[in-house]
């Protein structure tokens, strides 16, 4: 039987349409949602959650389940926070700076160790499990050693933070490397990537999505170790969140404790959503891991 044209129109018509096709398409596109709309879409559920939490908290307090000195209400915590505003801010600054510094150093150490352990069979057999072992060691256990090595110094805190975060980062990298699809490694090998080049150009980027997840856990470890470590030694006039938390506890000031907790939580949320969240979204989009299916 003879062939026939598409129902849409004759071939000639189609050719005409072709020229204007792309322009028309552009117009028909659903406009990219505005920046504001996207920020709002990401923000309102958070605000709602916070509002809900506050309401529930206030209701529990009003219910009189526990006396106010044991479970202070939002109002009291708010006051406590502002009463101590300067201290809290300078404490947050100090702690944040220590955390970032320790974390960055742990990143270097953890990545190096992770890479070596993941790729060198003997090292893996020797140290693979020890990394998790170190990870489970509570920070307090390191204090004596930290003081032994670094005296009563920022160095001691730094040491504890690095020991807290590095194993976690190393483990994250190892698991990331372990789960690289073998075809990518083979591809790299065929392209002639060896040793450090292979690590830098193939293995690390291939492990990146899991690695970032490991970094997040590493940050949490670093932060917790840090808050514990800040109790090793307090330098007069230099406030830190760990020290403030303890000072409030020592004073049995529940409102103060909760105020510091909220500061910690807010910092944690900010770092996650601004730093790790953004990194993860970018990586997922770039690597094509976003399921576009409706």
């Amino acid at each position, binding site marked *: *039987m003879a062939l026939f044209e598409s*129902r849409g129109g004759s071939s000639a018509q*189609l050719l005409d349409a072709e020229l204007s096709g792309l322009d028309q*398409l552009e117009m*028909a596109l659903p*406009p990219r949602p505005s920046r504001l709309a996207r920020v709002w879409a990401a923000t309102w559920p958070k605000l709602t959650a916070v509002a809900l939490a506050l309401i529930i908290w206030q209701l529990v307090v009003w219910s009189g389940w526990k006396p106010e000195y044991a479970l202070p209400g939002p109002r009291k915590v708010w006051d406590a926070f502002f009463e101590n505003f300067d201290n809290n801010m300078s404490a947050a600054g100090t702690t944040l700076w220590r955390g970032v510094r320790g974390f960055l150093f742990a990143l270097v150490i953890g990545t190096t160790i992770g890479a070596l352990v993941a790729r060198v069979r003997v090292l893996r057999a020797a140290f693979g499990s020890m990394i998790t072992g170190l990870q489970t060691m509570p920070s307090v256990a390191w204090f004596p050693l930290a003081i032994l090595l670094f005296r009563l110094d920022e160095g001691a805190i730094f040491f504890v933070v690095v020991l807290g975060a590095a194993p976690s980062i190393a483990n994250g990298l190892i698991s990331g490397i372990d789960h690289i699809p073998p075809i990518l490694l083979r591809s790299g090998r065929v392209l002639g990537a060896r040793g450090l080049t292979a690590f830098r150009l193939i293995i690390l980027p291939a492990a990146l999505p899991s690695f970032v997840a490991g970094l997040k856990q590493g940050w949490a470890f670093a932060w917790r170790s840090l808050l514990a470590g800040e109790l090793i030694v307090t330098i007069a006039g230099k406030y830190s969140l760990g020290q403030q938390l303890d000072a409030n506890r020592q004073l049995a000031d529940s409102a103060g404790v909760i105020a510091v907790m909220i500061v910690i939580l807010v910092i944690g949320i900010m770092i996650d959503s601004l730093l790790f969240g953004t990194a993860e979204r970018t990586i997922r989009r770039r690597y094509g891991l976003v399921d576009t*299916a409706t």
Partner: protein
Amino acid sequence: MTRASTAARREEPATESPRSGAGSLAAISLDAVTKVYGHAGNAVPALDRVSLEVEPGEFVCLLGASGCGKSTLLNLVAGLDRPTTGTVEVRGGRPTLMFQEAALFPWLTVRGNVDLALKLRKISRPHRRETVQALLEMVHLTGFEKKMPHELSGGMRQRVQLARALGQQAEILLMDEPFGSLDAMTRDVLHDELERLWRETGLTVLFVTHNVREAVRLGDRVVLLSSRPGRVVAEFPVEIDRPRRIESHSVADLAAQITGRLRDEVRRHGAV
């Protein structure tokens, strides 16, 4: 040309648009479907006002240059993606899609992968076992039941995927280059099997391939897509009696004719 300006879900009631009047009972109907990937700045138009209808029980083959939007079209029909404009409607049953790329579940054995399709249809265990065995036999993978996907060759993986897709017993089967990595011999056998199944069960098939003879061997109709953005540029009804043989002259002749047209089309769009 009537043009629905918003994307519509495929389960919507069949609104009788003027030009789809004749094909309102079509198993698959695309009406002026446009699909653009990305946003304004770097948009990639993949399909441009594609209108296509596939009758229940029809076997339609889709041909087109690499990157012209065939997989995109199947994704839309399978409901995995939404058209930018236009409507996609599927009637008379769930569609299933056999993907172009490897899509086996790496945590399941060959048997497990096929079995899952049946399990999700809530078929009882004893019945499943039998059916899975039959399906694997059909794709010539008896003896490989317990292998993991990564232990298979490329062609074997493709056959497992075929078995899994057939195991779903969907009424509408969308196939994206299903026999691309099979040797001629195996492929011929599977052609026969697919045709038998199609005849016996009244399946509707939309079949993407690069092999023009394969299209003519299997299809009731061959549809040609142009490139970037994809448009339906020609349709060829295949009126060769079945059973057909891929080496037969009638198949070769029509294939040559279609190839010629395809070449024109590809050349005209400057895709190659």
